[in-house]
């Protein structure tokens, strides 16, 4: 079915190609055909390195072997068959000479006996009669050709030959001066038919060689697979454990470079963590003092303003720290995302929005729990701040976790959406009603989504406002 489809597709493309060739120079269609072929290859060939390598090795090997076998067998059969035919025909020629040169007993008994004993030819001398009409010859019979040629050159008399009738034997009739000589000989005497041994040997040795090659190949490819796995896991932010450069030199070099890179990144993360811990400790200590001092002064109008300022400063500090921290210092763990979505729904309700949520698929996903929660909380807080209805839906299928947060707020025009991700960016319109907005919420959320190997995009919501979609691999 698929093949037929491909064929019709190809023929369609080819016909369009032919039309194009009329108009353009000859090179263009060749290039186009090559592109189509390459595309087809890309689509239908296996994607893994191991199966690809196997194909690259096995297909040429198979082609070469078949070609070699064919050529060799052709040559071999030809030579051997000719030699064998030569010998048999020589024997027949000498029998004919003997019969014609020496007087014979009436039944040609002696010569028949000698032939069958010494030459392994079963002969009989028939009374003179016309030769039967030639039998239809097999199309590609080496034996027939070789024998006929030899008889023509060595004996040079009219003859009739039957290589088909009795499968084990070959029958030859030759017109002599007074009689007709009928020779029946075994096929194997004239024809090299024992060459299957050669084929068996060839196939079995190449199978063994192929097996050995596959074993070695797998060992060569495994380090590349390991490198790919480690890089993938590091990209998702999981720690890289027990990875050591192995395999061919190029792979080792790539692995060592990856290790150096990952160590450098880890070191930077570590330094940043230490710095952030210091900054947050010191600033929080000072904020604590402020609050205590204010509490000691007591409530009046001035302190109310100061309290609000401290509150704002605190929430900004938290946002900046969260932005700077990202998710670098958190270790992923298995989290029930379905329950997290429920929590977020509760958050949205608490913030005063009409919230609903849904979840489909396996609930447990490996994420950096508090970072991922922060990511979603930022989105839900945005939605609840700008809309009256908030809809949160999670989907976990085919290796991806997708969380969609919809609101019915004013939304963001498509051309401004990329700006929304810029740090410290604040919109001047309705989106900036809240004075405590730091302009970091979406930046942080996207950072975290990307830190999980996924992404965050903004779209139009069916509810009329903004839709934020977080998509991460599980």
């Amino acid at each position, binding site marked *: 079915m698929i093949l037929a489809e491909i064929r019709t597709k190809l023929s369609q493309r080819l016909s369009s190609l032919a039309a194009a060739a009329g108009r353009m120079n000859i090179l263009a269609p060749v290039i186009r055909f090559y592109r189509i072929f390459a595309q087809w290859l890309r689509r239908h060939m296996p994607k893994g390195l191991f199966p690809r390598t196997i194909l690259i090795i096995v297909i040429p090997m198979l082609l070469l072997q078949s070609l070699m076998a064919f050529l060799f067998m052709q040559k071999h059969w030809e030579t051997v068959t000719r030699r064998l035919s030569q010998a048999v025909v020589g024997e027949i020629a000498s029998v004919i000479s003997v019969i014609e040169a020496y007087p014979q007993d009436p039944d040609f008994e002696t010569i028949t006996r000698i032939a069958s004993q010494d030459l392994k030819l079963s002969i009989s001398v028939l009374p003179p009669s016309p030769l039967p009409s030639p039998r239809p010859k097999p199309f590609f019979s080496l034996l027939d050709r070789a024998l006929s040629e030899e008889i023509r050159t060595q004996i040079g008399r009219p003859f009739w030959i039957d290589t088909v009738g009795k499968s084990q034997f070959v029958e030859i009739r030759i017109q002599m001066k007074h009689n007709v000589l009928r020779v029946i000989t075994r096929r194997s005497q004239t024809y090299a038919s024992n060459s299957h041994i050669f084929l068996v040997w060839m196939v079995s040795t190449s199978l063994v060689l192929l097996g050995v090659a596959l074993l070695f190949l797998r060992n060569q490819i495994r380090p590349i697979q390991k490198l790919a796995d480690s890089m993938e896991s590091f990209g998702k932010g999981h720690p890289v454990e027990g990875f050591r450069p192995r395999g061919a030199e190029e792979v080792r070099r790539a692995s060592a470079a990856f290790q150096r890179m990952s160590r450098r990144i880890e070191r930077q993360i570590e330094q940043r963590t230490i710095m952030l*811990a210091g900054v*947050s*400790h010191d600033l*929080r*200590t000072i*904020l*604590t*003092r*402020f*609050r*205590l*001092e204010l*509490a*000691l002064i007591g409530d009046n109008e001035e302190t109310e303003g100061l309290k609000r300022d*401290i509150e704002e400063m*605190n929430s900004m500090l*938290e946002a900046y720290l969260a932005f700077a921290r990202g998710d670098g210092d958190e270790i992923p763990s298995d989290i029930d995302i*379905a*329950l*997290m979505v*429920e*929590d977020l*729904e*509760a*958050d949205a*309700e*608490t*913030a*005063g929005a009409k919230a609903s949520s849904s979840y489909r698929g396996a609930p447990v996903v490996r994420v950096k729990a*508090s970072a991922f*929660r922060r990511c979603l*909380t930022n989105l*839900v*807080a945005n939605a*609840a701040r700008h809309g009256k209805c908030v809809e949160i839906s999670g989907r976990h299928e085919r290796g991806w976790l997708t969380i969609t947060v919809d609101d019915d707020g004013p939304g963001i025009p498509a051309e401004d959406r990329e700006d929304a991700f810029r740090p410290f960016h604040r919109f001047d319109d309705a989106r900036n009603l809240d004075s405590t907005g730091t302009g970091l919420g979406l930046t942080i959320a996207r950072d975290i989504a990307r830190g999980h190997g996924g992404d965050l995009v903004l779209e139009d919501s069916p509810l009329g406002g903004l839709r934020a979609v977080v998509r991460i691999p599980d």
Partner: protein
Amino acid sequence: MQAHPRTVPADDAAHLLIVDDDNRIRTLLSRFLGEHGYRVSLAASAAEARGRLRGLDFDLLILDVMMPGESGFDLAQDIRQKSQVPILMLTARTDSDDRIHGLELGADDYLAKPFEPRELLLRINNILKRGRSSEPAPLPEIRFGPYVFLTERGELKRGDETVRLTDREKQILAIFAASGGETVPRHMIVGGDMGKGERTADVQINRLRRKIEADPSNPIYLQTVRGIGYRLLID
């Protein structure tokens, strides 16, 4: 370093020990708590705190986590091996891992800097009240209607079926379990990252009702106590 509060606390006032490496916070805390009727002693390091603990019995320890030298965690662990004095941890770190670590070590409560001073007072009061009333240990399990809540594992079961609960819902049920059927004031049911305060309690209670009540608008188990809070009817 005895503080000199402006109002002299009563002799039977609760005696608190504040351990914090920040000099200003120590003095400010001691003044603040002194004004609210507590006797306060101060220590600048874990070593100094040990010295004071040897000489006196305190009603409550307020312990900073991040201190040079021995950390608050180490000190808390050490103290727990010998005494059951209530401990309230203060920290400038807000990671939930830290909070869990502190509570596992035996701290009674945990407050992140910068805290609201009034919240600190409230929590101190709560801890002291708990200690004084010598309440029975929280029930290992509570039953209401067809439900069983296993306090230690935080698991709610209906028959053999486990009801899926979020962490906050488990916390709330644990609070009800600890109250033993008494009315829980709304401000005790807090949580959530956005809207703070009592609205959070209402939302969470409503969600919990939707999970356990047959008719959430006419609750049987989770009842509202007008003007005060909520009550779980335990069998």
